């Protein structure tokens, strides 16, 4: 087996195993109640990993059958990732009711804008690989990743603008997904343009990078799920307590005028 292929397969096994562990830890700690979509996503990644590994090695499964399964799982994963981003955003807004309406509106607006952008991009940059089917699949994956990364960037910029505070777990999920999205965007963009009919060094390298990213993400998520929630910092003693009340009283007075 070629070195890159060996790395890719090792990382593939490791990624599936780590996602399985992640799902187990998440469920043990009751995260399915707090982050149902994320736990569903990690469960799905584990299951699809097991299925795809089996199909890859089973002699009874043809290359076409494997390709169909692979494309189907890619589509499901993409949808699940969007749902996770939305879950992250909802969690972020949960603590700020004043932002709920406008935040959701902006999120939708950004989604529509990003969809528009990828449609334009697809029009001006059609897939160009030697394998038209897979090149198209990777072009679609690129489009999906652009929207995903764009939405995550929006979430971070939005929370930065309003100085929203992140809970450790939500932050970890967002960070992991952001890393995954950007790396996956690079590899899918390359493969959409260079996808060969027969796997070569480039395909093996990008597969290895993708699996490596899955491993890194699973580790990030594990660390954040296992970590205890960051204790909030108490206000500085120099700030008199009554000041907050007074400021707020004034704010209320004007808001209701």
């Amino acid at each position, binding site marked *: 087996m070629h070195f890159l292929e060996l790395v890719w397969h090792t990382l593939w096994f490791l990624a599936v195993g780590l996602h399985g562990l992640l799902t187990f830890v998440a469920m043990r700690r009751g995260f399915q109640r707090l982050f149902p979509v994320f736990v569903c996503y990690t469960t799905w990644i584990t299951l699809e990993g097991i299925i795809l590994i089996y199909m890859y090695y089973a002699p009874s499964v043809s290359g076409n059958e494997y390709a169909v399964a692979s494309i189907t799982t890619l589509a499901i994963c993409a949808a699940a990732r969007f749902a996770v981003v939305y879950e992250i955003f909802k969690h972020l807004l949960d603590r700020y009711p*004043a932002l709920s309406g406008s935040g959701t509106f902006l999120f939708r607006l950004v989604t529509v804008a990003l969809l528009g952008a990828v449609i334009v991009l697809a029009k001006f*940059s059609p897939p160009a690989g030697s394998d038209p089917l897979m090149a198209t699949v990777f072009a679609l994956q690129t489009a999906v990743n652009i929207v995903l990364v764009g939405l995550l960037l929006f979430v*971070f910029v939005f929370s930065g603008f309003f100085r929203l505070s992140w809970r450790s777990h939500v932050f970890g999920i*967002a960070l992991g997904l952001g890393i995954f999205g950007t790396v996956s965007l*690079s590899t899918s963009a*390359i493969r959409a343009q260079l996808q060969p009919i027969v796997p070569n060094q480039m395909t093996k390298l990008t597969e290895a990078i993708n699996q490596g990213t899955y491993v890194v993400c699973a580790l990030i998520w594990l660390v954040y799920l296992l970590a205890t929630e960051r204790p909030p910092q108490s206000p500085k003693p120099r700030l008199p307590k009554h000041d907050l009340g*007074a400021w707020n009283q004034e*704010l209320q007075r004007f808001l209701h005028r």
Partner: protein
Amino acid sequence: MNIAITLVVLSAIVLILLIRLAARQYGSPKAPDDPAEQIRFVDIEAFRNLIDPAEAKYLRTQLPGQEFRKIQRKRLHAAVEYVRCVGQNAALLLKVAEAARHSSEPATAQAAEKLVDNAIRVRLYALELIPRLYVAMLLPTHGLPTTRVADGYEQMTRQIILLGVKVPLRGNA
């Protein structure tokens, strides 16, 4: 292939940006050392004057068209600065309130909770108002800042101005 290279470079930039944004945001909330020192003074009356429809109308009748447009643009520029200042004050108060939100004393936590809510609203209003002021700058004779902004958003501007009310009158506007 060019598009692939562009996307690879872009995604690398976005990755760095995401990590930087994440690192910066995860460090907060940290209450500023002395919020009063950092809050910028906002002259409420001056701001009211800048977006006062009557004032704009008066200037329009007294000044030649070109002169009026020039002055009105300057006034709106100043109004934008005021709104920015108020937005920054709201952001600062948000930090203070966010940190105080977890106070062991219920009264402080409750006050902070309300302050977070209101400061966010003020920041949101500031976000909405600035583009409108810029539009008004482009069309100074169309009465946008006076009628639409002042009438429709008078309440909003009051909320924004408010942040400067209860803080020491020092610093720079």
